[in-house]
């Protein structure tokens, strides 16, 4: 079987983002999704630090330290974008105004619980940023992650063992092996990479996955 590359995963997520959507892409892997949004569609990227209509990274030498994204990297503003303060920015999230938020994760439970802010390691300095706000605010929360850890453990789990970011908040998980819809009935597989069977996925995850794949 062919695992999806990170770019392929990002491209797959991008397919599910319709024109006109208001979207927040979390720090790290989700940032890549921006590279695969169709150039002929208008999609609005929000950054928690107070901008809507975020554009791509500036050309070398054009960086402006006052124009950054949530990851504190230099960005640009599209024509038609605008700035606002932090309370308004998080009102956009918490108030349910964003259509889609794409986040990375340490673990996601089959019912949509998210763990992505803290490994629980006793000496780690905790840092949460906007993760908990993003987790509960957007109309749909997508997670993008490798299905397995380097040690081979599934990151899609029955119950999260890491500290939670939000409860029952993730609606869809995009991984390198499959795409899952989550809900009250647990996880449903909607797509798999070629050469992988749902039984193999059940073995890898240890979950009784629903089969929601559609034959091509």
């Amino acid at each position: 079987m062919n695992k999806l590359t990170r770019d392929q995963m990002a491209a797959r997520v991008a397919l599910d983002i319709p024109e006109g959507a208001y979207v927040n892409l979390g720090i790290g892997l989700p940032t890549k999704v921006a590279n695969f949004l169709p150039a002929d569609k208008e999609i609005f990227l929000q950054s928690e630090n107070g901008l809507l209509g975020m554009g791509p990274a500036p050309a070398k030498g054009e960086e402006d330290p006052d124009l950054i994204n949530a990851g504190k990297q230099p960005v640009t503003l599209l024509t038609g974008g605008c700035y606002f303060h932090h309370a308004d920015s998080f009102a956009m999230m918490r108030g349910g105004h964003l259509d889609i938020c794409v986040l990375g994760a340490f673990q996601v439970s089959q019912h949509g619980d998210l763990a992505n802010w803290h490994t629980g390691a006793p000496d780690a300095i905790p840092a949460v940023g906007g993760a908990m706000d993003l987790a509960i605010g957007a109309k749909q929360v997508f997670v993008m992650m490798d299905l397995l850890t380097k040690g081979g453990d599934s990151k899609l789990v029955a119950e999260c063992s890491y500290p939670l970011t939000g409860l029952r908040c993730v609606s869809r998980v995009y991984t390198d092996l499959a795409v899952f819809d989550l809900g009250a009935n647990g996880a449903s597989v909607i797509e798999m990479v070629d050469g992988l069977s749902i039984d193999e996925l059940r073995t890898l995850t240890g979950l009784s996955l629903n089969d929601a794949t559609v034959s091509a």
Partner: protein
Amino acid sequence: MIDKSVASAEAAVADIFDGARVMIGGFGTAGMPDQLIDALIAHGAKDLTIINNNAGNGDTGLAALLKAKRVRKIVCSFPRQSDSYHFDALYHAGEIELELVPQGNLAARIQAAGAGLGAIYTPTGYGTLLADGKETREIDGRQYVLEYPIHADFALIKALHGDRWGNLVYRKTARNFGPIMAMAAKCTIAQVSDIVPLGALDPEGVVTPGIFVQRLVAIGNAVRAAA
């Protein structure tokens, strides 16, 4: 390409349903979206709950909507004015329900809805008739009243300029409730004097980002003549 502009006020309000909760911007007549209200009257939706600071002035705008008997309940801070005679008549006839809310609580509850808060503790109104029966709490030696957010299905607001993404700027004190109502309604419809090209609004000066606006209608340079 995303273009939130619609051709007419009539088209903009066509899906406002009977029984809808509708916020209407304005403080008195400043900022009142008259053309949208006229379209709503023509559209015919009834049993509406209206959230506005007042309860109509004279015979136009919200007053006309009241006169047409489309409003079951009004949530406002200051219904009684020298020219609120249509509301006054309905109220005395028992044909309209009034929820009176102190103006700052009205603003804070609308803002809380837009921001996704579940409730707020506000000092305003504590110990008064308007807090009767409401939960209270002492916090750091001061008394507060628990107040819940005010959500709406639609907001009808008036702004000065808008662009096709829905970004808005307002004019002077006609701004009033527009920005917070835009955040609190599921569907916000703005009437603007004109729709300007994308990029014409200063990104530092946009008051309502387009994410809070679903539709806008250009009504021309129809600044209301002084009454």
